[in-house]
């Protein structure tokens, strides 16, 4: 299982994203699952609500939305932002997120002068309770080494052009410390609510590959 593809844009080659199944075949598969599900429910081995909660959990609750809410809250609440930059683990826990790999967090702030990028050169550590599941390319060895040697070229691939005067800082996550980038709040978003702001923030922004754009 050492195989990695070279895709850097979240579309790994070997994983399908669109189903080519015929309707008939798809119905047959759906029936097989329904049969298993009702049998297991009848035997009391699973229950419908627990299954729904699990899907929720893996699909949304751990998604980038948690991190996005942290970022949006920091944008609207200066005192929270200060606490976040001082002790991210505690500040993030205030919002009810944390646990597992998200435990020891450090938040680094992007400014007009400094752009931060996060990588893990050793073991692809990743604060996934806050950021959701890591993208496949994050674990790619070539990506990891290039972020360190030539971060601007990686940023350019993600459409992030930085002026030469901007300092790029690369943060190497480890088992002890996980970094999260606090992106700059885009101009012209003063009228947006915290929830609306959170929707502008995606995972790539919180690794520092992209800037947040006003949608």
């Amino acid at each position, binding site marked *: 299982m050492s195989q990695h593809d070279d895709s850097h844009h979240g579309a790994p080659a070997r994983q399908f994203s669109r189903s080519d199944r015929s309707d008939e075949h798809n119905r047959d*598969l759906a029936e097989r699952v329904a049969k298993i599900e009702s049998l297991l429910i009848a035997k009391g081995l699973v229950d419908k609500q627990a*299954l729904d*909660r*699990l899907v929720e*959990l893996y699909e949304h609750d751990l998604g980038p939305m948690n991190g996005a809410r942290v970022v949006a809250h920091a944008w609207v609440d200066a005192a929270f932002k200060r606490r976040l930059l001082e002790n991210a683990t505690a500040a993030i826990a205030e919002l009810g997120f944390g646990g597992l790999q998200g435990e020891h967090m450090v938040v680094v702030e992007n400014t007009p002068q400094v752009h931060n990028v996060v990588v893990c050169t050793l073991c692809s550590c990743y604060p996934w309770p806050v950021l959701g599941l890591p993208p*496949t390319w994050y674990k790619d060895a070539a990506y990891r080494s290039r972020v360190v040697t030539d971060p601007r070229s990686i940023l350019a691939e993600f459409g992030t052009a930085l002026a030469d005067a901007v300092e790029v800082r690369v943060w190497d996550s480890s088992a002890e410390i996980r970094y999260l980038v606090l992106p700059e709040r885009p101009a012209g978003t003063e009228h947006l609510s915290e929830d609306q702001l959170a929707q502008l923030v995606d995972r790539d922004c919180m690794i520092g590959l992209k800037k947040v754009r006003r949608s």
Partner: protein
Amino acid sequence: MSEQRLASPAIAEMSGPCALPRQSGELVFNDDWERRAFAIAVSLADQGHFAWREFQQQLIESIAQAERRDPQNPSRDYYESWLVSLEALLRRKRLAED
């Protein structure tokens, strides 16, 4: 035990051919039955009816089997292999007998 607050790294971070299909880090399901099949396997493992690595091993085998003739063009897609694995494991553990 089924009341779980955080996703399990053993599941979320599977790598290689059995890595969960994702887009921008988030899981991709094409149909609702794929979600159901995903959740059933995770729930049974959470409750200790089998170890996650048993399911993972079965999944690796099912995917390899689907790719045997033409790796570029597998005879089953990811979640169909997932379902085949789930059915096989349920049979082996005698969990789904009428």
